């Protein structure tokens, strides 16, 4: 595999507020059905709603009780997504055992539910009250470590953490591992389960969350809409299986799309605010196109990061209009809310499905484009069908991390 060869996406697994499998996710996203609602565990929080994985995610039934006791929710979501993706990639157990399989997962938070629970026990009951499973469940690397154990993946396994770009960065690193020859199969994606009162309080303190004052919870996540007033907390996981195109062909699987390249930069500017002129984002877009051997003007579709914050949406709209003027643009966060470290992977999956099905889903809750977004070809209300050969998925995170993935039709 040469230094620039694309990787085939042969499996996709999704566990998100839009559904606990790939098919349901795509139906929900394509129809623009919103998912934010009041969440019991957030009662008394400054924001009491979020987009969470549906209750049909019965982890004891899906993974068995032993696994649900051993793994943090962020690992549980990733494990179910990984199983769906690998089942679809149609690798037999012996093929899996023979191949060098890597696991690269992006997470912004790691096992924070476990951390919070044990910290509460520690404060109320002292050191003896801490559970023996605290660190095996909660350490930030354990989503990757546990996936390698559960999947029998003996190649490199690791976490990457670039805040809300984590899931996208993980796929980029996965592509690099495949291209370097270090591995034959890459299980990559992102996972976060941090819809907790502590984390809601933290984002609220930064004035980052919609409080649902202008619009009810279901329509609070409105990327690129003039009425946007903050993002909606969400959780989820997505996993892609990447292989060399020649290996996919040998297995007789038809890839969804190919990951053709990626660009990653840092703003080196501010802890939470995007660069006002979008230097880092624009450079990441151009780098992704160059790595994929595409001209930015050739990009047919962009799945934007757009989280529904006024500052972020406007800055990104300006960058997209300037760099990829011919793209059909959407933000699927209108449906899912902001799944934080998982978002880049979930949106990579949706971008691949858009190329595969020749359908770009609408931006839910978008009615009147915000400042700078009027220049974009936004998909509003109904999904758009057409021929889309090339696409980008952008992800940006606190700290100024920018990662842009480039996709082509397989």
């Amino acid at each position, binding site marked *: 595999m040469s230094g620039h060869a694309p990787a085939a996406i042969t499996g996709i697994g999704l566990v998100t507020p839009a559904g606990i499998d790939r098919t349901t996710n795509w139906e929900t996203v394509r129809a623009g059905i919103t998912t934010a609602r009041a969440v019991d565990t957030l009662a008394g929080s400054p924001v009491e709603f979020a987009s969470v994985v549906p209750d049909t995610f019965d982890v004891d039934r899906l993974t*068995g*009780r*032993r696994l649900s006791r051993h793994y943090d929710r962020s690992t549980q979501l990733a494990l179910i997504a990984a199983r769906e993706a690998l089942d679809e990639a149609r690798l037999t157990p012996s093929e899996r055992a023979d191949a060098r399989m890597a696991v690269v997962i992006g997470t912004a938070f790691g096992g924070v539910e476990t951390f919070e629970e044990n910290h509460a026990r520690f404060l109320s009951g002292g050191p003896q009250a801490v*559970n*023996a*499973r605290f660190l*095996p469940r909660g350490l930030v690397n354990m989503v990757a470590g546990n996936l390698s154990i559960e999947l029998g993946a003996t190649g490199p396994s690791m976490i990457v953490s670039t805040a809300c770009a984590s899931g996208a960065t993980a796929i980029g690193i996965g592509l690099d591992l495949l291209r370097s020859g270090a591995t034959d199969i890459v299980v990559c994606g992102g996972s976060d389960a941090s819809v907790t009162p502590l984390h809601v309080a933290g984002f609220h303190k930064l004035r980052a969350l919609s409080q649902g004052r202008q619009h009810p919870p279901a329509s609070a996540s409105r990327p690129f809409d003039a009425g946007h007033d903050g993002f909606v907390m969400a959780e989820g996981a997505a996993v892609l299986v990447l292989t060399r195109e020649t290996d996919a062909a040998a297995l007789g699987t038809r890839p969804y799309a190919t990951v053709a390249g990626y660009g990653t930069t840092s703003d080196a500017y501010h802890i939470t605010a995007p660069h006002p002129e979008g230097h880092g984002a624009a450079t990441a877009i151009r780098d992704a196109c160059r790595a994929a051997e595409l001209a930015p003007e050739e990009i047919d579709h962009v799945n934007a990061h757009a989280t529904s914050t006024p500052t972020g949406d406007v800055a990104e709209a300006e960058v997209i209009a300037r760099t990829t003027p011919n793209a059909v643009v959407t933000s699927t966060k209108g449906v899912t809310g902001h799944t934080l470290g998982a978002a880049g992977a979930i949106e990579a999956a949706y971008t691949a499905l858009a190329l595969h099905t020749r359908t770009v889903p609408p931006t839910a809750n978008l009615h009147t484009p915000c400042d700078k977004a009027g220049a974009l070809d936004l998909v509003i209300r109904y999904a758009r069908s057409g021929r889309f050969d090339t696409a980008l998925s952008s992800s940006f995170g606190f700290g100024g991390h920018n990662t842009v993935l480039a996709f082509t039709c397989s």
Partner: protein
Amino acid sequence: MPDLPSELTSILTANFDVPDAEISPGRSLNDLGIDSVATVELADLLQQQYRITIDDEELSTNNTVEQLIGLVAAKTDGT
């Protein structure tokens, strides 16, 4: 003391998913799939349920079910 062996069997099946039929006096915790981390959990559970203190060196994965029963019996008899 109520039937301690059956109480401990219930604890093992309910918390560690050990099938009832696999539990016999001569088998070690390790044999039953209770690893080092789970053994710490087990000690915590026993300490809470029986209000006893189990020191680190008193319970390991090599202990048999019979030894486990003996340990808890000795500590609960004394209270």
